[in-house]
């Protein structure tokens, strides 16, 4: 599967988890913690991102079909962040406004951006940007 890029340039880490059952939710949560750790987020912000990823995975699982959650670093100018995304074919034809309202109520406190791109199928992307208040001290930039 081609990774979902969204509006931002990708950078490592690039990870994905297939979500087929409830055990995979734990794996998504764990993978989000690892990816955010590699980018240098503090433990508290890792917890936020892990919860956002798990919540997205739970939404995916409720549709009953297997899907993939993608987790990757993103760059926007000098900013780096973690993007979590999933294609959502079951939302094809649903008003993007309604989807975004629902997603913001679930995930709005956890991430900086919630985006919906494409139409067939639409893809949900959420992003948290790394800033000085969210960065773990003494991160080695070559750690990936």
């Amino acid at each position, binding site marked *: 599967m081609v990774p979902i890029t969204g509006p931002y340039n990708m950078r490592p880490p690039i990870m994905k988890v297939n979500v087929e059952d409830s055990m995979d939710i*734990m794996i998504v*949560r764990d993978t989000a913690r690892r990816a955010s*750790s590699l980018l240098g987020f503090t*433990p508290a912000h890792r*917890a*936020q991102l892990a*919860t956002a990823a*798990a919540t997205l995975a739970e939404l995916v699982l409720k549709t009953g079909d297997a899907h993939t959650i993608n987790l990757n670093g993103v760059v926007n100018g000098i900013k780096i962040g973690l993007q979590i995304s999933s294609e959502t074919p079951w939302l094809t034809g649903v008003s993007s406004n309604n989807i975004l309202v629902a997603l913001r109520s679930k995930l709005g406190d956890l991430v900086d951006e919630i985006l919906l791109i494409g139409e067939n199928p639409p893809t949900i992307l959420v992003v948290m940007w790394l800033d000085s208040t969210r960065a773990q001290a003494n991160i080695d930039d070559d750690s990936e």
Partner: protein
Amino acid sequence: MALEVLLVEDSKTQAAQIKETLESVGLRVRVAYDGPEGIRDALDNPPALVVLDVKLPTMDGFQVCRRLKRNPATQDIPVIMLTEKAGPKATMSGLRAGADDYIPKDIFASEHLIGTLQELGILE
């Protein structure tokens, strides 16, 4: 001398499991079985770290964390919340209460707990 951790957990079974994890990496652990006991214990003898369950009798973990973080005597002690409630609302409640990490009690919990201890400088 080994650093001391205060574990606030009402379930004796879970307390024993978490204690074993913490002791396996060389930490000393004392256990409080409810929130008020945990706060008293932290004030009487400030530990290097508090590991706090969310679901506690009398006073929940969010309230305990807020009390510890508001008190100058305990506000600098790192608090890690270990929980079965890991949804968006509960996670944000824990982090807004001042927790330094919020870890679900799942199969990865021990690994994440030890990872966080390293990053907080509790373990080398």
